[in-house]
């Protein structure tokens, strides 16, 4: 009874923390476009606010730069359970254009924290982000919440 109630609440109210680990801001702009009335992310009960302490989903954009190596781990530990990590764009997966000869990025993000889902694209379309978050996030959070017990 309590579990199913928790599931419903976890599915219908997702708090997202957006973290840019040294990217080009392209993906962040796409996320901002998601918040606009055209796509209207909040109608699905998803809220973006940059506070890891109350986040369910960590949305990571950008390859990991030198300064972010430690801070990314710190942010991850501060996020309460259950949490899922979604990487947005090509950078957190491969480093993309920044992963050049003589570059100073430490992609992929999965080297530092466990990653649950990846949304490729440079940048992905808002509709793509929306689709993938809706198909993965509610179910994943609910199952993770149950796993904890």
């Amino acid at each position, binding site marked *: 009874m309590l579990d199913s109630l928790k599931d419903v609440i976890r599915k219908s109210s997702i708090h997202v923390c957006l973290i840019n680990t040294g990217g080009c801001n392209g993906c962040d702009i796409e996320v901002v476009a998601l918040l606009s009335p*055209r*796509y*209207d992310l909040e*109608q*699905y*009960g998803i809220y973006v606010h940059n506070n890891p302490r109350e986040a369910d989903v960590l949305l990571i954009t950008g390859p990991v730069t030198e300064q972010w190596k430690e801070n990314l781990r710190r942010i991850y530990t501060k996020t309460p359970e259950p949490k899922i990590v979604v990487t947005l764009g*090509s950078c957190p*997966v*491969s480093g*993309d*254009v920044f*992963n*050049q*000869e003589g570059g100073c990025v430490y992609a992929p993000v999965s080297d530092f924290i466990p990653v649950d889902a*990846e949304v*490729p*694209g*440079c940048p992905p*379309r808002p*509709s793509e982000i*929306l*689709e993938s978050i809706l198909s993965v996030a509610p179910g994943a959070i609910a199952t993770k919440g149950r796993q904890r017990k």
Partner: protein
Amino acid sequence: MSSVIWYLYEFAKKAWIDKFTTAKSEKEIMDKPDRFRDFPQVTKENCISCGACTAACPTPSAIKLIRNTDATINEILTFPEIDNSICIRCGFCSEVCPSIPKTITCGENHEITEEFQIIPTEIKYVIDDYLCIRCKKCTKVCPVDAIEEQDNKLRINQKKCINCGKCTKVCPVKGSLKIIYVNNVEEQKQVIKLITNTLESVVEENEYQFKDLDKNSIFRMQIPIKPLKDKCLEIINMEDLVQDLLEKMIDRLNLRVITWDMDKCNNCRLCVAECPSSAITYNKNDGVQRDIDKCLRCSICYQTCPFYVVKFYNVRFLIEDDVILITVQSSQLSRS
């Protein structure tokens, strides 16, 4: 209390409750636009394994050329494989792909073809600044604004020019806007040589007619153009090109014809030392000899010779319909 009733009335609508419970973005928003540049698609069979796509890709290791090791296919296929987690969907790979039809298609980028070719095709248009009267009729008619004015000189920007040829039709000065054929330059050289050589020989053969021409009078004659044109066509079999070359060469051609009357020569050898290109030689058996291939037609021998051996004529040519009009004038140069 009335406000509470208003809220209940406002929110209790069925459509509102429906939207609240089954939230969904409208379908047209979620659909990709028609011209959306999605991840590149690869058609393996078209690939010529040139590697242009890997070189053009701005991200490292997004495209890799791989080999098909499938045993069931006899022919080993080489084709690009695109890693979607690295690809930035720029479409450069499909732009540079040289195979026809293209191996990589991406949005509409694979339909891009170069607007102009770096090596110009066959024809190139050039303005002769010496003949140009700056009427600017060509600038008005040019559809791509390729003709630019610079320091009071008109010039064709070869990067913009699309070889339409409209400028040549409006140009009022004959030969001011030149058509240059870029291909077969060597053959064109041969044709030009042939034209000048035949014209010179024609004048030399008919020398007996104007031997005693005095300084102030003019001798006129004409020859048909057909045999010359046929000879040219044997070298380059292009009617337009040959006609154009003939007109360009023969109109305004000012030929200097030098004839030697060896009977009058006394072997004084004054000319041998004077000749700037050492075309004139002397030996005991043959006497003074002139090498036509070396001769510059500079007229120094004509001016030095005391026995009137050398004769020097200025000859002008003009094409009129099917004949070449030849005008011969004896040299006005003074003799020492």
